[in-house]
């Protein structure tokens, strides 16, 4: 128990609570409006974009050498 007579949170709970402060709930709400299939299609588009960014980063670091 803590000073307010509430159950003490575990270390993991404290970390989870800290992460929750940075969660963009609007993104979650948008995702929940999609079908499961649409969520996977969106994930694959995100993967493609992430790969494009990685390639652009590699190209930029080569040209700056």
């Amino acid at each position: 128990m803590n000073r307010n007579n509430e159950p003490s949170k575990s270390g993991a709970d404290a970390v989870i609570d800290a992460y929750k402060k940075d969660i963009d709930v609007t993104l979650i709400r948008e995702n929940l409006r999609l079908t499961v299939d649409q969520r996977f299609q969106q994930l694959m588009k995100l993967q493609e974009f992430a790969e494009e960014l990685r390639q652009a980063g590699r190209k930029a670091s080569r040209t700056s050498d």
Partner: protein
Amino acid sequence: MTDFGALLRLLTQNRVEFIIVGGAAATAHGSARLTLDLDIVYKRDTSNIGRLVDALSSVQPYLRGAPPGLPFDWSVETLRKGLNFTLITNVGALDLLGEIAGGGGYDQLVSETITIEVAGVNCLCINLEGLIKVKRVAGRPKDLETVAELEQILSETQREA
């Protein structure tokens, strides 16, 4: 890039018994986080392992991160001798898990699943509460970050219900 639809179709069309877990399961439940591979828990009986080997042989599974040229025999015998395999295939990254911490194997986990439809096929996926539980047990910083989002999703879905 991992073609989730292609992998799920191969597994389902070959009647492989499996459960989607990990980041792909989080996506199914509405997570906005990027995941690069498909994690599945597969049933460990010999007939299911046989179907799994048949299902994936066309996409040439190989150990992810292993040096090129390292011999890897994609066979029932190999899968029976091991438990968890991190693979790369022609259609993306796939983790085959015989069991997961906090969830056990297929038979223990199957009661904590929902059926989802992806790419025209129906698959079992760990339910939101089960996913939160196993991510908490995994306990790495990235898992706890995912738990934070999943708990937010849970409260959003409960709010809408």
